């Protein structure tokens, strides 16, 4: 095996300056652009060849802003504009805007909508009031994860927001389980979705919406006019900062984009790419499907017990297995690891306690906020306590890493 193959197999983040020469290599990571760009395609499910890339309604805006585009979840998406570090810092310091139109959006209606959602997801959707949202998970019967999602209860229907890369899979999964009076519609392609995130997100929203966004609580939503466009605004996000997500008909994408940037001028509002989205979420220990959770992991070992309601009277798909997992305690846990030297951990790197491998890294990066290497990874339960000293094999060299309590970044403005 040559170096390139070995390196590729050892982790999707690894590439080297030679890759350009190896079209075989490029096709093996389903990447057809220039060589270093494939790194963001971390999710197995997102590394799929699509005959033609889809474009979000903001594609023109990204191009105009000089974004570097990569294929992600079937869409041509901006991975970065200025650079990961400045974009990351922009969101932590003031406010940034993410095009998240690639996310899957599915409407569920009908008399039995609630019981259907409750059967399909791990969290308890019955407690939702109108305009309330909750984070949740879909499981397979063996408790492996189909996807993670946000469930919105709206006036006359539910809206499920799923990972873009899993949109088709989830849609099929739901269709297979439809029962009773339930109507389901995938509205992904009709709707544009922007995330406006950062400590100054609220004043930006204030200027552009017909309602006072300060009245919207964390994981609550409201319908409002945004520059005359009927939109759904929710106080949700994936960054650890205060922020909103705005859903509206895609025809108005350019108009809303322009107004948001105008309103955020004094805060030096900027567009943010997938690269910084990834470093921001990692600093909060927010799971990324395809990295930290997938069909081989269950929500309890992933630390998603807080959205796994085994006390739901009707149960849900996967609840029997999860009950057993809970009784026996999961054999491994997804933990936060902070490097003790300057090494940068990457997905698939091995984690050691002494000479014994006790786990592997699922997400890793240099943390722009902490300025050190951080990782999420599964380790055997007894090595998962905060304060435990472990080591990560960084391309043949062991670097010390300490298990720390989440989140890595503790100064987020999230409400």
């Amino acid at each position, binding site marked *: 095996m040559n170096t390139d193959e070995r390196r590729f197999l050892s982790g999707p983040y690894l590439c*080297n300056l*030679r890759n*350009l020469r190896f079209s075989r290599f490029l096709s093996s990571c389903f990447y057809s652009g220039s060589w*270093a*760009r494939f790194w963001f395609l971390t999710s197995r499910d997102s590394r799929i060849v699509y005959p033609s890339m889809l474009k979000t309604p903001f594609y023109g805006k990204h191009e105009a802003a000089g974004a570097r585009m990569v294929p992600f979840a079937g869409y041509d998406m901006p991975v970065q504009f200025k*650079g990961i*570090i400045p974009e990351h810092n922009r969101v932590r310091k003031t406010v940034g805007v993410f095009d998240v139109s690639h996310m899957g959006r599915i409407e569920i209606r009908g008399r039995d909508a609630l019981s259907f959602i409750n059967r399909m997801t791990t969290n308890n959707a019955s407690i939702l009031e109108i305009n309330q949202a909750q984070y949740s998970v879909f499981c397979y019967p063996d408790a492996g994860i189909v996807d993670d999602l946000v469930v919105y209860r709206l006036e006359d229907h539910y809206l499920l927001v799923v990972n873009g890369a899993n949109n088709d899979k989830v849609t099929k999964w739901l269709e297979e389980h439809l029962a009773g009076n339930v109507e389901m519609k995938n509205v992904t392609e009709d709707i544009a979705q922007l995330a406006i995130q950062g400590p100054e997100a609220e004043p930006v929203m204030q200027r552009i919406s017909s309602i006072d966004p300060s009245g919207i609580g964390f994981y609550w939503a409201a319908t409002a006019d945004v520059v005359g466009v009927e939109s759904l605004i929710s106080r949700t996000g994936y960054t650890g900062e205060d922020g909103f997500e705005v859903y509206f008909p895609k025809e108005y994408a350019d108009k809303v984009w322009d107004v948001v940037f105008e309103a955020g001028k004094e805060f030096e509002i900027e567009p943010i790419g997938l690269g910084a989205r990834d470093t921001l979420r990692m600093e909060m220990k927010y799971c990324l499907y395809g990295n930290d959770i997938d069909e081989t992991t269950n929500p309890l070992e992933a630390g998603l017990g807080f959205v796994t309601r085994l006390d739901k009277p009707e149960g849900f798909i996967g609840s029997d297995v999860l009950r057993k997992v809970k009784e026996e305690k999961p054999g491994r846990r997804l933990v936060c690891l902070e490097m003790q030297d300057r090494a940068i951990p990457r997905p698939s790197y091995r984690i050691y306690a002494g000479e014994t491998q006790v786990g592997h890294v699922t997400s890793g990066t240099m943390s722009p906020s902490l300025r050190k290497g951080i990782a999420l990874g599964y380790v055997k339960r007894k090595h998962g306590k905060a304060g435990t000293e472990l080591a990560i094999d960084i391309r043949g060299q062991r670097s010390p890493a300490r298990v720390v309590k989440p989140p890595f970044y503790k100064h987020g403005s999230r409400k």
Partner: protein
Amino acid sequence: MAKIPEDLKYTKTHEWVKVEGEIATVGITDFAQAELSDIVYVEVNTVGQQTEQDKPIGTIEAVKAVVDLFAPVSGEVIEANESLKGAGAKVNTDPYGEGWIARIKLSKPKELDKLLDPAPYAELVKKSEHH
């Protein structure tokens, strides 16, 4: 457009070489730094060692990717740019100047003939830049 100075030689793996006497200074090109972006640090752990053309002599760690640096020529790695240990961003801001990475004392000067001149390297970059 990526900068490609006229007075340097290039490799297909996006290193540049500047030869002065028997010493070759090595770095990565403007195209390479832009593709990597956000370089955190550079490590050359082969100083004092003999290397062969095309063998890895160090690694470049960016926020979200790590790549090898390959020796464009054979010889002894005599020096590494120590300032990049803590400030890899110099490779981003000045890839052909302060962001130089290593110096190699040439043992096979003839190998220089195999390296790319600016024009063919520019062609290579052009092909890689757009898909």
